[in-house]
């Protein structure tokens, strides 16, 4: 086996040498031209809400027009992931807000002057454009009819209505400039407070299961859903002026292209672009409107058919779930065998794999993104899925082996079988049903969890789900959710089928 492999490798080497000679020149030319066209596309990140998508699309086209190909990784999971990705050079640009930069990234809320902020950011090799124009601050919004009925127009008016039900985004609930200090400043004592996804929050407002939620002041949904933004009468919210953050190492013309967008987006225009993006479900088209309004040409890329998108998402999804499952089996079964022997090591293995399971997915991703090998790649998603998939396999392998009756074990020992032969010929086949059930659980979990890959721009069926949640567009959500559910069922069935081949007949009587 080894010699065959070696021979194959040598053949491959020779073939490579031949082809190297033959293709040397064209490859060199190709490389040269690629370098001239500045090679790899710049990667632009965006957060998972419409405005961020639109701004990223605008940046993408501004860069492309300047001859720098750019790629948009849309809807990545929150400030920390984007910042870590930018800091470590895995993305080149993303849209951010000055308030968020001071509060969340630099952790110095008092820092307001752009010079001070720029100096701080430069330490991480990050630059900031001038303000794009609009201020997208936080606002608390209510249904117009409910606000009028309760005579609420300012945030201080809420003090007299502790019965109102608040549905706040998780980020807002935990931010330095979010709910806890806001409630402190306004002395609000709400009885009913829950965390809810931003897109779903609008749905919840509409069907009256909450009364107040946080929103961004340029959010087109405020007008669309007939909501009112309450006046921040104590001037609590900081300024959230939109800017682009970028790597300082970008070529000067790239920074110039971004800088040309500065000052060109006032609040009215941004609200209009957001509304267009949400109406058409097409961020690139909204970005196109921006360039047309400026009298510039806009070459929109050919739009992809639904079938081809579904195929791309599904293939990527299966790739992520499949590779991570394979790794989980390769690592999990031996770990399970070790764990089945009990003792300190066995308990430690089970404890660690269980602990991994309790890390929230976003936190796990945020931990992995700054690590050089991982970053905002499929590798990070695979690593996270692998870690989540480990526990069912380790636990089932261990318990399947431990459940083998004592007389069977003793018979195997008394026969004189070596410990390796006992494991291979007796214990593992006997535990195969339980082990396979663990692998099946992992596979189904992985198919479901692989949607989180979209949070770090790694694609898969999570892409339409996150995008649809943000647009509050059920059709788009279902484009991801239905294939994911079908995949989970198919995986379940194929494992049921696999049972017949893997589990020995004597155990299926």
């Amino acid at each position, binding site marked *: 086996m080894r010699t065959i492999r070696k021979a194959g490798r040598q053949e491959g080497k020779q073939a490579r040498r031949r082809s190297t000679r033959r293709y040397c020149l064209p490859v060199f030319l190709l490389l040269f031209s690629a370098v001239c066209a500045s090679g790899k596309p710049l990667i632009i990140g965006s957060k998972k809400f419409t405005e961020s998508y639109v701004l990223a699309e605008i940046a993408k086209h501004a860069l492309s027009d300047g001859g720098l190909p750019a790629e948009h990784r849309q809807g990545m999971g929150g400030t920390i992931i984007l910042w870590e990705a930018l800091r470590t050079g895995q993305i080149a640009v993303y849209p951010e807000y000055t308030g968020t930069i001071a509060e969340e990234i630099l952790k110095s809320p008092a820092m307001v002057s752009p010079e001070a902020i720029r100096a701080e950011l430069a330490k991480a090799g990050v630059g900031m454009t001038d303000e794009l124009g609009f201020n997208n601050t936080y606002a608390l919004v209510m249904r117009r009819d409910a606000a009028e009925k309760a005579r609420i127009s300012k945030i201080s008016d809420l003090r007299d209505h502790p019965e109102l039900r608040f549905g706040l985004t998780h980020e807002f609930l935990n931010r330095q400039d979010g709910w806890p200090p806001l409630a402190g400043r306004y002395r609000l004592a709400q009885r009913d407070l829950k965390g809810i996804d931003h897109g779903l929050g609008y749905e919840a407002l509409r069907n009256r299961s909450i009364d107040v939620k946080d929103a961004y002041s340029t959010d087109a949904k405020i007008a669309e859903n007939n909501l009112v933004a309450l006046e921040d009468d104590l001037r609590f919210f900081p300024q959230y002026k939109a800017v682009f953050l970028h790597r300082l190492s970008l070529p000067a013309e790239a920074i110039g292209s971004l800088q040309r967008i500065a000052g060109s987006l006032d609040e009215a225009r941004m609200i209009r672009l957001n509304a267009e993006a949400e109406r058409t479900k097409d961020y690139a088209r909204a970005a196109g409107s921006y360039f047309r309004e400026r009298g510039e040409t806009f070459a929109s890329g050919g739009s992809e058919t639904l079938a081809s998108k579904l195929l791309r998402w599904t293939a990527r999804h299966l790739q992520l779930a499949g590779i991570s499952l394979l790794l989980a089996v390769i690592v999990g079964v031996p770990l399970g065998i070790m764990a089945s022997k009990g003792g300190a090591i066995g308990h430690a293995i089970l404890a660690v794999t269980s602990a991994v399971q309790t890390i929230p997915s976003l936190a796990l991703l945020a931990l992995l993104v700054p690590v050089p090998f991982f970053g905002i790649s499929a590798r990070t998603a695979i690593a996270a899925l692998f870690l989540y998939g480990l526990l069912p396999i380790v636990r089932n392998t261990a318990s399947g082996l431990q459940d083998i009756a004592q007389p*069977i074990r*003793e018979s195997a020992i008394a*026969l*004189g079988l070596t410990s390796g032969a006992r494991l291979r010929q*007796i214990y593992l086949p006997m535990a195969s049903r339980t082990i396979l059930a663990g692998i099946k659980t992992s596979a189904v979990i992985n198919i479901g969890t692989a949607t989180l890959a979209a949070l770090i721009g790694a694609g898969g069926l999570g892409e339409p789900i996150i995008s649809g949640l943000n647009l509050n567009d059920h059709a788009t959500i279902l484009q991801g959710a239905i294939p994911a559910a079908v995949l989970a069922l198919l995986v379940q069935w194929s494992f049921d089928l696999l049972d017949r081949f893997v589990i*020995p*007949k*004597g155990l299926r009587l």
Partner: protein
Amino acid sequence: MTNTPDAKPMIELLDVSKNFEAGTALHPTNLRFARGQTTVLIGPSGCGKSTILRLIIRLLEPDGGLIQFDGDRMSPKNIAEFRHRVGYVIQDGGLFPHLTARDNVVLMARHLGRTEVELITRLDELATLTRFPAEALDRYPGQLSGGQRQRVSLMRALALSPELLLLDEPFAALDPLVRAGLQKDLKEIFQRLQQTAILVTHDLAEAAFLGDHIVLLNEGRVIQQGLLGDLRDRPGSEFVTEFISAQRSLAFA
């Protein structure tokens, strides 16, 4: 039987003892098991009779003393080779449920690299010897009756023609008719093979029927040994009388 008292014993326990957390399972004990004989270890539950078998096959490590097999001192180092020379049958067979009867029997021989022809020949002999129906060889343990399972277990134990056969209450889980049939067959097999065997039972009738030499144990000690007649006619203690009379009606009915 042909062996003489001074012949070298097949297996010998010298001051062997075993303690568990719950107490002493076997006090320091000396025992000799003669070649070609069936020795029966008998006594009430917890008397240490199964412990002796498990010490011999080294499922348990003795706390003290040593065990000699054919004059060689047994140790964890040479136990693997030794186990191939010993067959072991337990109460519910201990058959591997994922293997057919055939594969259970030839598992070890195949592991040791015997040819398929050798395996088939040996399997034929064993099926005839144990009166196991050839057509049932391809069934799984779950498809066999209790008696058939014990016959497979016996075939498996005999597959490598062991010098010593250990049987730990092999009939305890069987109904009386099946048990009687198997006991009769086993006696025949032992006689035909001149098999050295150690049988553990708590049933005096079975001991009387199969045993050449009987060792009576109680609370981790050998109380008395000899022929059944010796135990009955010259009991060494009150316990011997009690144990025999408790089962007398069955044994000598």
